[in-house]
């Protein structure tokens, strides 16, 4: 929770940082035709960022950031998503999805209720069912090959 943050200042800084990052990653050998538009865009982005910084100093729009609910839950949920994404290429789609769904459901449910072992077991079946449903639709019906890992 960040109280009373100057959101204009933050926005301006982020914008400026992005402008710099993009600008300096431009290959010097690139042809004019390919880069004239992005260069103009970067310039405009930088300009808007500077305007935001100015506004932030003069007539700041202050607001509380990250003040909704539990930020820790958001963090863990995000972490689980990323682990899930990476796990797909190692454990394969099926296994990593079932595990990820179980993990997220368990963690998020803890905020609302008690989770007992039999409940978890039930959820494992539900998760497996869900994933199987989508898996079959995608691989059999739509012919999209889903990554196979160590197990399935």
């Amino acid at each position, binding site marked *: 929770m960040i109280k009373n943050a100057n959101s*204009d200042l933050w926005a301006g800084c982020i914008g400026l940082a992005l402008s710099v990052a993009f600008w300096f990653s431009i290959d010097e050998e690139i042809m004019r035709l*390919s880069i004239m538009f992005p260069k103009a865009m970067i310039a405009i982005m930088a300009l808007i960022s500077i305007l935001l910084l100015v506004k932030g100093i003069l007539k700041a729009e202050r607001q509380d950031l*990250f003040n909704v609910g539990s930020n820790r839950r958001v963090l863990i*949920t995000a972490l689980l*998503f990323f682990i899930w994404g990476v796990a797909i290429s190692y454990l394969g789609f099926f296994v990593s999805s079932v595990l990820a769904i179980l993990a997220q459901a368990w963690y998020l449910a803890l905020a609302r209720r008690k989770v007992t072992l039999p409940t978890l077991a039930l959820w494992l079946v539900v998760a497996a069912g869900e994933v199987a449903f989508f898996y079959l639709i995608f691989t059999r019906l739509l012919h999209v090959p889903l990554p196979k890992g160590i197990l399935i």
Partner: protein
Amino acid sequence: MILHCEVVMEKLVLALGALANPVVILIIFSGVSAGLFVGAMPGLTATMALAVLLPFTFTLPPLLGLVALGAVYMGAIYGGSFAAILVNTPGTPSSIASAFEGYPLSRQGRALEAISVATIASAIGGIAGVLFLLFLSPPLARLSLRFGPSEYFWVAILGLTLIASLSEGSLLKGLLGGTIGMMLGTMGVAPIGGETRFTFGMPVMQGGVEMIVALIGLFVLPELYNMAALGRASLGEVTVSSREKASFWRVVKRVLSQPGNLIRSCIIGEIVAIIPGAGGNIANLVAYNEAKRASKHPERFGSGVIEGLVASESSNNVTVAGSMVPLLTLGIPGAPPDAVILGVLLLHGLRPGIELFTTSGVLTYAFIISMGLAALAMVPVGLIGGRLIYRIIFRTPYYFLVPTIGLATILGTFALRNSFSDVIIMLILGTAGYLLKQIGINPPPIVLGLILGGIAEVGYVQSTLGGAAYRFPVLRLFENPLSWILIGMVLFSAAWPYLAALYRRLRSPGVSKGDDP
């Protein structure tokens, strides 16, 4: 293309005859249902669905194959609204604006009403598109050819002025979001020049940021994080009074009670549809914006205004049949799914052009009419399906909803280009989107920038190349009469917020409602 009335009528009658076949009806209903499912899943697009269907159509006789494709297409564009309304994620890019009003309606417990509205609006739009295609193809086709690089550029700029009206709150932040979106769109291979930009050394970045990946990431993930933070789902329970309002005839009356909105949105849908390469993605945003502008209470938009939803959903379904105008008359696909349909036509030896309406006239008219039937079929399928989906989502506890929606989006993202890196990009963009939302930079301008940036760049560069022999090549952008019309619209659209405020102040001096934008 002068076709004698009696000949056309004769063909239309024969076409209807060809369609009065239980197999055809079955295909239409299953096509619409399948399309609905595909459209509702964020990550699956209408084009994907058609591409998957393509090999199956080889074995079917041409009419059945085309009917199937048309039904799936119509259903998919409609289905996008479901995800937009229930989970704040456009299921297809043509339903982006549907989320703006649809989702707030859901939170207020009016989800069923919203779904019913979207259904009726989509059906009306679909039929309107078919009528345009049947009766106005020749002049519309000629108009579509007049859109060249300069015109594309100005259309893109016009679209970008939408950012101003769509940014709730700070205009500067909205513009910043727009430029961020445009920069995201520049990553990868330059559309003109073919060189790679901003790949930061990774070969996989040559593929850039796919628009749907960004759409899913920026819309869904922040919503999921929000649910996680709150510890509950955001879907409001539908109250008794709202359920009543969602009844079929009430909704039909409601939608038809604003004919101006409907007519305007359908016309916008058709104009955008005939511009090759535009399509539903842009139509829904422009129609929404116009509905907001024409409303007596534009400030209410964003809190669940039915008119906005109607505008978005009717205009995008117009583009289904509407974008086939250049396709059937000139062989030019008006929207990405049309490329698949073109492939099917060519494979069966059907060449776009006058032949299609004369020699193969019965087939063509049957196909066109079948899309109108598909639009009608959407009503029962959608209403029943909608209620079902709503019930499922409502009954699902939030701690299962989050990972399940995550599953659907990860799957959809992967399936797009068979790319595991796209999944990672989606997660990164989504998380970044959540953070940006905190400081007031919202997803819609970013996605707008992403969609329109590419069009603007191609238009600009191609146009200035066309003026290579001039002293100042950039003047080429101002040459054509069609460009002047568009430039006028751009100026008008950009100046509107100020003009409107001025108008209000002149009308009622001393009562200044709005702040300076």
